[in-house]
C-alpha cells in the first residue's frame, strides 16, 4: 500500500497540475477588472505558499529535530537539505510569476516592495544554505551548521508573511486567507485557486521525495566507494 502510494505520487501530481491548468485557462472566466491576467493567480499564490510555508517550514522542522539530541538522525538532515532545495525552486518560481504579473499590472518587472524584497532575501538565504553545505566535507559538521543556519534564516518567513501588513506597499494583502475573514474569490475561480494549492503541494511532496532519494543514493555511493578503497588497501597490504 505504501509502495503504491509512493509510486502514485508522481502521476497523481501530474493529473492535478493538468487539471489546474485546464480549469485555469479554459473553464474559469476572465476577471472583471484584470481580464486574463488574473489567471496567473492560479499559479502564483500556491507556488508562494509552498515555497514559504511548506518547503521552508519542512526544512525548519527537520533542522530543529536534527539539533534535538533525542531525534537526531542523518535522515532529518537529508530531508532538510531536500526541502531547502525544493524551496529555492519554488521561491524562484514565485518571483518569476510575480514579475510576469507585475509588468502589465504595475508597469515594471520589479519594485522594491517589502513582500518582493523579503521573498528575494529568503531565496538568497536558501542559496546560502546550499553554499554552506557544499563548503563542508564532514557530514556531521555540515548537518549541524546547516540546521542552525536554516533555523536562523526562518526568522525571515514571518517577516515575509506580515510584510504586506507592516509596510503598506504595492503588493496586495491576503485574499483567500485574509485576517478579516470572508472569501474575496467566488465560484469556479475559488475552486480552481484551492485546487492549485493542493496540486502544487503535491508537486512539493513529489520533488521532496525525489531529492531525498537522490541524497540517499549519493550517501550510499560514497559509503560504497570508501569501503572499496579500504578493501583495496587491505588487499594490497595482505599481498
Amino acid at each position, binding site marked *: 500500500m505504501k509502495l503504491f502510494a509512493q509510486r502514485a505520487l508522481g502521476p497523481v501530481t501530474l493529473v492535478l497540475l493538468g487539471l489546474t491548468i485546464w480549469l485555469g485557462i479554459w473553464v474559469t472566466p476572465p476577471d472583471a477588472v484584470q481580464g486574463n491576467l488574473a489567471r496567473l493567480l492560479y499559479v502564483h499564490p500556491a507556488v508562494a505558499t509552498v515555497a514559504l510555508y511548506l518547503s521552508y517550514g519542512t526544512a525548519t522542522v527537520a533542522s530543529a529535530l536534527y*539539533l534535538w539530541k533525542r531525534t537526531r538522525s542523518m535522515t532529518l538532515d537529508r530531508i532538510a537539505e531536500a526541502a531547502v532545495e525544493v524551496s529555492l525552486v519554488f521561491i524562484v518560481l514565485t518571483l518569476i510569476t510575480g514579475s510576469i504579473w507585475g509588468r502589465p499590472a504595475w508597469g515594471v518587472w520589479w519594485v522594491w516592495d517589502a513582500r518582493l*524584497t*523579503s521573498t528575494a*532575501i*529568503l531565496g*538568497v*538565504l536558501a*542559496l*546560502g544554505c546550499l*553554499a*554552506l553545505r557544499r*563548503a*563542508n*566535507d564532514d557530514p556531521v*559538521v555540515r548537518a*549541524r*551548521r546547516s*540546521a*542552525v*543556519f536554516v*533555523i*536562523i*534564516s526562518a*526568522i*525571515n518567513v514571518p*517577516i515575509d508573511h506580515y510584510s504586506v501588513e507592516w509596510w503598506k506597499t504595492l503588493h496586495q494583502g491576503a485574499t483567500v486567507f485574509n485576517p478579516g475573514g470572508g472569501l474575496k474569490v467566488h465560484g469556479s475561480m475559488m475552486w480552481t485557486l484551492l485546487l492549485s494549492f493542493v496540486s502544487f503541494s503535491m508537486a512539493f511532496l513529489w520533488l521532496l521525495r525525489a531529492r531525498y532519494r537522490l541524497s540517499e543514493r549519493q550517501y550510499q555511493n560514497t559509503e560504497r566507494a570508501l569501503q572499496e578503497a579500504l578493501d583495496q588497501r587491505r588487499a594490497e597490504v595482505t599481498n
Partner: protein
Amino acid sequence: MIRTALLVAAKDLRIEARSRVLLWQVVPFGVMALLLIGLAVGPSATTTRHLAPGLFYVVLVLVSLLMINRSQAVENSPGTKTSVTMLGLDQAGVFIGKALALLLELAMTSVVLLVGVVLFLHVPLHGALIASPSVLLTIATMSVAGTLYGAIAAGVDGPATLLPVLALPAFAPLLIAGERSFASAVIGGALAKWLLILILALIVYVAIGIILYGALEES
C-alpha cells in the same frame, strides 16, 4: 555565563589591542570606502546628505564582515577550540563574550565613520549625535547576528567568501531598520518604530545565539 562572557570579550579585545588590525587595517578601509562612495555619488551636498544614512550603513556592513571573519579566525587558530573544550567554558557565555568584543570594536569604528559622515557627506553634527543611540542598537544586533553567522562559516572551505553569502541577506533587514532610524533622526520621522524593530531583532538574535551557539561548537 557572565563571567565567561567577560573573559572571552577581554581575551578578544586584548588580541585586537596587541595586533592593531582594527586600527591599521579595518578603520582605514572603512574611511577609504566612505571616501570612494562619496566620490561616486558626486559633490552635491544635498545628494550626499540625503544618501548619507544608507551609505554609512553599507560601509559599516562591509567593515563588520571583515571584523567577523577576524573574530572567528582568532577562534580557529591551532589549539584554541581544544582549549575551550578542555576548560569546559559555557558556550552561551563564549557567544555573548565574542558578540560583546565585536560590538566594542564596531562601536569604535562607527565613531570614526560618523565623523567621516559629518565631514565628507555633510550630515549635521546634531543629527549624527541624535542618530548615535540607533546606530549603537543596530551594531549591537549586527554583532550578535554576525557572531552567529561567523561561527557557522568558520572552518569551512573559503570562510571569507562564504560569510557574505550567509550574513548579508540576514543583515538586510537590520540595514533597512538602521538606515530608516538614522534618516528619521536626521530629517525627522518615526524613529521609535524603527528602534522597536531593532530591539526586537536584538532580543531574537540573542535568544537564538544562546540556544544554538553550543550546537555549532559541539564536537
